[in-house]
């Protein structure tokens, strides 16, 4: 025990001796958190519309005003020729063109149906899809309004209707930020913990100081614990700090039990740092370990369900995410914070993390033996 305390003391002195390390460990991630949470938004607003209204009837004007009144759209201008409209899209001034052909209103009154054309800049498929949904719902709404006004009531009576009412639980204001914040926090904590651990040991190797430790009577497990604990404490502290910032700046809801969250976080960090340890045992230089961890991190992050839910992945990819530790903590942190889920709701994920921690730490310790 005393030996471990000495190693801890050495590690902490080493970490905090370097004046640039402190801001890197604590200030940068927090700045990142604040900035990134604000970036990572899919709340669409200010979609720029250019209108090509060749009909110039009261109906077409009314419809355009409906677009302008919506919080998502902003009617930026009108042109009288479709080619000019497309040019505005190329220039990046317009995201969507609404083209109302000549005789639109007449046709609607006489033949009961009439077409309008919508052109969407679809280079970003995701936002184009959302834009399309919004535009269509405005048109549908408008369509319903004019039908109500113009139809005589008798025919309407025969029409069956299903009335759907929605309730959005756990996030009634549909804030995207409170969903992203825990996700980004998980990534920051993982990156800091994993990299620091991995780099620390490799640095000792590169500098040759690891040999000096190897010839002391320190046992392997003591060395491992001494290397893990400081970063584990730092990462947990970082997690708490991030949650606090989230609470203060983004009014992050903390619905569930915060102690439970830290218990899961403690186990998860053992896994993340264990991976860092393992990677450090298979590399010889800091540059190498950095790139190897970066490679795995990038893939782990992208497949953790931070941006897109895991359920939307193809089946084979979903099976592969079983080995992705970030995925489990990502799910659990969001469940606890936003939905107030309890232990029984995620015990399977939690036990998976426990098994993972034991396995990865054993492998790392075993590998270290062989190296020395």
């Amino acid at each position, binding site marked *: 025990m005393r030996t471990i305390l000495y190693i801890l003391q050495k590690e902490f002195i080493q970490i905090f001796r370097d004046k*640039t*390390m402190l801001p*890197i460990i604590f200030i*940068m991630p927090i700045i990142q958190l604040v900035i*990134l949470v604000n*970036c990572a938004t899919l709340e669409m607003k*200010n979609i720029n519309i250019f209108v090509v209204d060749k009909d110039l009837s009261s109906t077409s004007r009314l419809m355009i005003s409906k677009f302008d009144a919506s919080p998502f759209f902003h009617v930026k201008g009108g042109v009288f020729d479709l080619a000019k409209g497309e040019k505005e899209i*190329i220039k990046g001034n317009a995201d969507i063109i609404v083209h109302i052909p000549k005789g639109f209103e007449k046709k609607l009154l006489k033949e*009961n*149906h*009439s077409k*309008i*054309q919508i*052109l*969407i*800049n*679809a280079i970003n*498929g*995701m936002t184009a*899809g959302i834009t399309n*949904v919004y535009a269509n719902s405005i048109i549908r709404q*408008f369509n319903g309004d*004019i*039908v109500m006004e*113009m139809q005589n009531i008798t*025919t309407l009576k025969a029409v069956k*209707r*299903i*009335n*759907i009412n*929605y*309730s*959005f*639980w*756990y*996030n009634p204001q549909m*804030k*995207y930020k409170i969903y992203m914040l825990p996700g980004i926090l998980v990534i920051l904590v993982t990156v800091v913990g994993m*990299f620091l651990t991995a*780099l620390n040991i490799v*640095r000792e190797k590169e500098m040759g100081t690891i040999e000096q430790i190897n010839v002391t009577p320190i046992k392997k497990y003591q060395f491992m614990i001494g290397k893990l604990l400081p970063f584990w404490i730092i990462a947990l502290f970082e997690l708490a700090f991030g949650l606090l910032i989230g609470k203060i700046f983004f009014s992050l809801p903390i619905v569930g039990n915060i102690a439970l969250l830290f218990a899961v976080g403690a186990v998860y960090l053992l896994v993340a740092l264990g991976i860092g340890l393992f990677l450090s045992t298979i590399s010889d*230089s800091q*540059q*190498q370990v950095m*790139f*190897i961890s*970066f*490679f795995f991190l*990038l*893939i782990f992050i*992208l*497949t953790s369900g931070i*941006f*897109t839910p895991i359920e939307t992945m*193809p089946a084979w*990819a979903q099976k592969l995410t079983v080995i992705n530790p970030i995925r489990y903590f990502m799910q659990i942190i969001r*469940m606890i914070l936003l939905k107030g889920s*309890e232990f029984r*709701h*995620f015990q399977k994920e939690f036990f998976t993390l426990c098994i993972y921690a034991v396995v990865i730490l054993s492998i790392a310790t075993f590998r270290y033996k062989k190296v020395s």
Partner: protein
Amino acid sequence: MKRFWGFVKKEFFHIFRDVRTLLIIFGMPIAQILVFGFVITNEIRDAKIAVYDKSKDNVTNEIVQKLLSSGYFLLTKNISNEKEIGESLKSGSAKVVIVFEDNFAKNLEKEKIANIQILADASDPNSANMVVSYATAIIQTYVQNENINIKSPMQIKPVVRMLYNENLKGAYMFIPGTIALILMLISAMMTSVSIAREKEMGTMEVLLVSPLKPIHIILGKVTPYVLLSFINAVVIIILGNWVFDVPVKGNIVLLLAESLLYISMALSLGILISTVSKSQQIAMFISMFALMLPSILLSGFIYPIENMPNVLQWFSLFMPPRYFISILKDIMLKGVGFMFVWKETAILLGMTLVFIILSVKKFKQRLE
């Protein structure tokens, strides 16, 4: 000059000796593109739903069947009381719960109106929104078919055309984004770390007292990375074209020239980072936090810049990848010429010069 090439050769040996890093340099873009292309999708597929059907008649059955046969939904649970709603949303076993009122079919027949309640887990607002709008569309279609024999009232039919990307392929976003990200990573991060390494190991001093001029040392250091980055850019463009049919509509020479410009910008940024960092760790963390995440998130790679708060939109004006991604999209997807991208090109050029001037200043100070 001969000395210089000797030095470049030494640097090449340094990089190529380390097979693992090399594998990752070339493996990373490929892995990333495959992940983006095959794993990350924005389509709703097999969204988990639970049904709380209070009336269990032929109409509610039919609607549930319609929902399930669409392929968007997967029924995970039939719920029989209110309490289970919260349980299934909290455990994540359902994303939405669809509740049918009592006497559903009867109400629809007699009163001409029946009620459905959709309860969604909106902790992930985006997918909640999508799932709900898909379900709504399916239910509405069902009703319209029920009303088919009644003379339809006026209908406005929107005809939608998706420009530049008919099938809403994600590849049009992630191929340019990945090029910008990988080049930044290899050029800026590798350079900064490899120069910082010489400092940390004390070998920089050895190099500085050698007959090589400082400028040659720096150039020698970055030359291998220029080559690696360039090869990677070409590989990504080819992969994008073969696997995901991402076209190169514009001029390929212009595209490669712009890539070279961006690579030089990233390298000069890497050099600048290395002049301010004492150790590899610091160089790495600065690259990591100051380059990586912003170039993913502040560049319009994944999230559109227009939706960000104004402060960040202003902030993103200083993000080099933003301009490069915009150039790539213009040339590759819209097929426009230099006339449309000269502004972005000028900005990148200006940035490169600023980084170089700053690095030279810093470097000189260090030598004194």
